[in-house]
């Protein structure tokens, strides 16, 4: 008989082992109905807020990026500058590091904008003699955080009389967008960590409930891996089923919320469902599986004498 055993190919042994572990895991899943149900629901509802936080963080990132795009440096030009000089200046500014785009705004255009801002009630043209506004260059930035250095650099250029970038407003905007981004990531991490602990503990509880079986298996001569593998596969299975269920809530939930948000806050930029959901669901699934498996492994250590 030992000969016969040795004759089996390594592949055969591996597939037999997998078949064993898979069969056992499935059987446990079935025969342990109550426990499996409780574990799967727990893992599933744990994944919901994690998914929500990831979706939120993605949207916050998009929104803050678009908000920050609006930060610009305005260079007011010396009076009576010639079109050639203006083009040269424009090119000089565009060549600066951190500058994304430069747009010339003539003083007339600036006056029109001011009039628009004041509304129809007040007619500036009626009361002013000459246009007091200067020509200006509107400098869009690669990175809003570089507003100050870019402004300083622009100020050095001959022909630029003054530079403005709403220092305080930009600082506040950056502080808030920074906070939102960090908040999104922190929420994701916190919820991820919480999910990790909860899933581990849940699996630990299911295994504690079955420590007697583990003890018996070892008494009958099962090697640690033989005891472990079905539990690990069961953890993976629980993680997968839970993720699938969570996806069934997250996907339509996000699509619905998106549609609703487009109604209520149509002006807010939001992440399209296809850009977010596939990655989200796949990573939740992988995460769920991994956590389920390592949760089993960790919990088993306690009961396996290796």
């Amino acid at each position, binding site marked *: 008989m030992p000969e*016969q055993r040795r004759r*089996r190919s390594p592949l055969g042994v591996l597939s037999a082992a997998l078949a*064993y572990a898979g069969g056992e895991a499935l059987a446990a899943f079935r025969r342990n109905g109550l426990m499996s149900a409780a574990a799967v629901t727990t893992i599933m509802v744990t994944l919901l807020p994690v998914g929500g936080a990831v979706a939120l963080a993605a949207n916050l990132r998009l929104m803050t990026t678009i908000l920050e795009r609006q930060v610009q440096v305005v260079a007011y030009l010396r009076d009576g500058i010639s079109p050639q000089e203006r083009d040269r200046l424009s090119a000089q500014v565009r060549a600066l590091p951190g500058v994304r785009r430069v747009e010339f705004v003539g003083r007339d255009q600036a006056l029109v904008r001011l009039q628009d801002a004041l509304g129809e009630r007040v007619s500036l043209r009626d009361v002013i003699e000459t246009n007091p506004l200067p020509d200006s260059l509107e400098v869009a930035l690669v990175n809003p955080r570089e507003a100050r250095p870019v402004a300083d650099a622009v100020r050095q250029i001959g022909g630029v009389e003054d530079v403005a970038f709403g220092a305080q407003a930009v600082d506040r905007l950056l502080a808030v967008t920074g906070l939102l981004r960090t908040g999104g990531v922190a929420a994701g991490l916190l919820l991820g960590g919480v999910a990790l602990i909860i899933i581990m503990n849940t699996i630990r509880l299911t295994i504690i409930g079955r420590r007697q*079986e583990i003890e018996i298996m*070892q*008494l*009958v001569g099962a090697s640690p891996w*033989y005891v472990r593998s079905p539990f690990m596969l069961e953890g993976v299975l629980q993680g997968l089923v839970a993720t699938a269920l969570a996806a069934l809530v997250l996907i339509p939930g996000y699509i619905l919320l998106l549609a609703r948000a487009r109604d209520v806050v149509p002006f807010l930029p939001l992440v399209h469902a296809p850009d977010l959901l596939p990655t989200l669901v796949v990573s939740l699934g992988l995460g769920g599986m991994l956590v389920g498996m390592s949760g089993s492994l960790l919990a088993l250590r306690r009961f396996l004498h*290796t």
Partner: protein
Amino acid sequence: MIRLQGVTKRYPNGLLALNDVSFSMAEGEFVFLIGPTGAGKSTLLRLLYRADVASRGKVSVAGRDITRLPARQMPALRRSMGVVFQDFKLLPRKTAYENVAFAMQVTGTPPEEIRPRAMQALEVVGLADRADALPWQLSGGEQQRISIARAIVHQPPLLLADEPTGNLDPRTSWEIVQLLSRINLRGTTVLVATHNKLIVDILRQRVVELAAGTVVRDEDYGLYASHA
């Protein structure tokens, strides 16, 4: 096959379960381990299948010192023996058949051999027709016999049986003991801890008697009581 030298077992709560026990069994021997309840019979067996470690002294099985056996080698030790536990220790979520088959699966028996051999073991203990029952669906005696089937199915060289007839009627007990004898005649070393006076007295094998953790009698062709 089995050798205990000056073995003392004190449980963590201070209770002295075995006190300087020395005793050995040759390969192929059949020994009844008797003694009043709480004498230390199960403790002695637990040391042999390494569910517990001696506090002092040396335990060897099959020429191998298992007193300080690394955990890695415990599965191999346990596969080399069959154990009938006093409280059966059936896997609660496996059927009778699966419980018996499990003992062969862990030894890596080719899958195609498992089914016929497991069914045959169930046949031998008279429970082939209950193969699909879960432990809680079986009577006390039936569970005990599943436990026996599991212990013998992989034909181990050493069989340890702790009170294997406690839940069996005299007739079935007798059949089980006959079975153990047959297995012994085929070369298996058999150690049976028991309270069953009838079978000890009829079989007249070597009897080792424990009392309060000490060997008080070791007699070939013994009776349950030395002067009954």
